[in-house]
């Protein structure tokens, strides 16, 4: 029935052992046996979804016309900045992801103080360095500039308002630091520019010494320093009457305020922590009850193969859970439902095979032939039906990721991964175990052992 049975058993034992190791550890660290250096480490703390532990989810969208093309790399930069800003607030375990081509989804599980996060994100902060010539604008006033994030010509007001030229945006800043002035009277902000920015800056400052270089955050003047000397090395400093606090605040605005694309909040979801904890316990209990009924049914109806299927489903659950942990899947309610459904798919594969084996036995074939035929004949329908399930889950996944609908994404991922693992367990594990059982128990009375 099966050649190289030992190899198969070894492989299954190794896979299960690895999976159990992952399931029961908080993190996995592999040390170099000679030097004791860490070769590899991965944190495996389970991640609970917002629906299970409460928290905040926001969906940000580029605040640009709907038909504007946005460079994907700009969205990535914007994502990094949102991440940095919220990390700076000391919010842990937040996940910020680009969703589709113009949205960013942020999740803050377990967050209680949702307001400060929302405020921080909302300071969208497009930072611009603007040539205002001899004009020294007042701090806080609003200026119109000719910068356009899409690269197209911006819509300029026709009523004669002065439009200032944007020399560069905050995207050209490489690093920012705050230091004490040489005279020790105040603080100044030092900045280093990226290559391209350094060149633009050098050209501009050498041609405009003595003029004002106004810095705008969201078109609002935050500072208007005078260009004292040409800055050609790509490094410079802004000095003025800064205290330590104001210099730091300005530094943070420069560092994190330089979103290359303006963002607006289009969706907010807050889930209270009590609702989450309640749902988690209840759905886990429910899943357990459901599983017990299924185990009973399989054992009573299919007898020995049923028991084999239950063990195989158990292995399926262990492996699936290990993979979920390994790839940092967020455990959510729809995720649990998706997992249960894929368990159903795993059972379906087993049932298809067992029904086939019974049929072959009834047709008078011997046990070995029936088992071989069972697998061969059931395979096309298992393959085709599961491939179609994977096809639809990927459509779901695509849908979920363009809209930052993380619940839909989580559901489809668990479903698809579950289906793939269930193929492995039904085809490989169940068959191997069944042969092991047959060799151990050598059943004679097929009626009793197979329930035909």
């Amino acid at each position, binding site marked *: 029935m099966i050649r190289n049975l030992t190899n198969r058993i070894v492989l299954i034992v190794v896979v299960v052992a690895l999976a159990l190791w992952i399931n029961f550890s908080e993190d996995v660290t592999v040390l170099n046996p000679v030097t004791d250096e860490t070769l590899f480490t991965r944190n495996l703390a389970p991640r609970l979804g917002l*629906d299970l532990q409460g928290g905040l989810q926001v*969906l940000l*969208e580029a605040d640009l016309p*709907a038909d504007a093309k946005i460079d994907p790399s700009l969205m990535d930069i914007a994502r990094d900045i949102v991440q940095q800003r919220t990390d700076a607030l000391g919010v842990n375990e937040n996940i910020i992801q680009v969703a589709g081509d113009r949205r960013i989804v942020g999740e803050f599980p377990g967050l209680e103080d949702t*307001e400060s996060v*929302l405020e921080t994100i909302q300071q969208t902060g497009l930072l611009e360095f603007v040539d205002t010539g001899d004009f020294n604008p007042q701090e806080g006033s609003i200026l119109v500039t000719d910068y356009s994030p899409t690269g197209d010509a911006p819509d300029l007001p026709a009523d004669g308002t002065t439009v200032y030229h944007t020399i560069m945006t905050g995207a050209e800043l490489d690093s920012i630091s705050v230091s004490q002035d040489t005279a020790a009277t105040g603080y100044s902000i030092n900045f280093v520019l990226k290559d391209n920015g350094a060149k633009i800056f050098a050209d501009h400052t050498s041609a405009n010494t003595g003029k004002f270089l106004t810095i705008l955050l969201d078109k609002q003047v935050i500072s208007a320093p005078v260009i004292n000397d040409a800055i050609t090395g790509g490094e410079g400093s802004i000095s003025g009457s800064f205290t330590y606090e104001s210099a730091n605040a300005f530094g943070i605005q420069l560092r994190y305020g330089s979103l290359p694309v303006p963002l607006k*909040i*289009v*969706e*907010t*979801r*807050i*889930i*209270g922590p*009590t*609702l989450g904890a*309640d*749902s988690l316990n*209840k*759905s886990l209990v*429910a*899943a357990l009850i*459901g*599983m017990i*009924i*299924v185990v009973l*049914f*399989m054992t009573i*109806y299919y007898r020995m193969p049923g028991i084999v299927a239950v063990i195989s489903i158990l292995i399926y659950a262990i492996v699936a859970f290990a993979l979920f942990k390994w790839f940092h899947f967020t455990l959510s*309610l*729809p995720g649990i*439902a998706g997992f*249960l*459904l894929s368990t*159903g*798919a795993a*059972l*379906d594969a087993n*049932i*298809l095979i067992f*029904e086939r084996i019974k*049929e072959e036995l009834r047709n008078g074939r011997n046990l070995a032939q029936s088992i071989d035929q069972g697998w061969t004949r059931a395979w*096309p*329908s298992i393959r*085709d*039906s599961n491939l*179609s*399930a994977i*096809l*639809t889950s990927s*459509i*779901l996944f*695509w*849908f979920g990721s363009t*809209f930052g*609908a993380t*619940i*839909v994404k989580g*559901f489809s991922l668990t*479903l698809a991964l579950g289906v793939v693992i269930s193929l492995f367990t039904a085809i490989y594990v169940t068959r191997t175990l069944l042969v092991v059982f047959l060799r151990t128990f050598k059943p004679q009375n097929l009626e009793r052992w197979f329930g035909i």
Partner: protein
Amino acid sequence: MIDILSKRYFYFAFSLLVILPGLILLGTNGLPLSIDFTGGSLIEVQFETGKSLDTTNILTLYEDAGINDAQITTTEIGSLVIRSSFLTNEVRDEILTKMTESSGAEVSIIRFDSVGPSIGKQVASRAALAVGVAALGVIIYITIAFRKVQNAFRYGVCAVIAMIHDVAVVFSVAGIGALFFDWQMDALFLTALLTVIGFSVQDKIVVFDRIRENANLLRKLEYEKLVNHSIVQTLQRSINTQLMTVEFLLLALALFGGITLQEFTVILLVGLLSGTYSSIFVAAPILVLWEKREWTTWFKRKEEAAV
């Protein structure tokens, strides 16, 4: 062997009986779309026990903030769900502060969802697109997988007709749920719907696969008998997989899984049941009907009766 297919018009009538009431409800009351698709805000709050605000007071709070379309419902656990048009975070904070002030009670937010109107519309249109793409993908996939069978294309089309049947059943359930339990179609509903589609196709393929296999083995058999034979052979599997395992898992989740998932699991439960039903009682009969071109005789019978 049981003769399943001969009563096919009875099954079609039964399906219509299940589908039509809900669809008529949806037609008269409109789709109960949630803010996920229409845009808007939902706040669920719980007041400290004993201290609560009248709904009229809350409505006034909203009106003071310039929101005139707020609707309030009370949940089973005693919290209040307030739905309205899109609230910015500032307006929401303002309303919550006022709620706390005027009730003098601790107000805890259980849930706050706010979806911008533009994004809601996009979600709705993309969802329709996702379903369309899924249907097309299924036809193509089945046509390829069954290319060795005569009229492979028919199998794909029948699977999609049965799939539309299941979608209609799900909508019907949602329509009835909207009337009696105040259900709404939200992102989870959509997930359930797409899952039903996925599993419905999976189930059709298992039955079709048996027809594919038997078509090679029993070449001489009349098509209707061949299909009937295949259904009967897969019947035990359909019952065991769907009723005994998947439905039990979902039933447990629906009964004990807490309120958040109830609507989702009930829709899955009915939808998956319909998926299995439609393999046997919709998709397969239509295959036979198509093979026999029965529509040519639909109206003849009446003529004969008239003569």
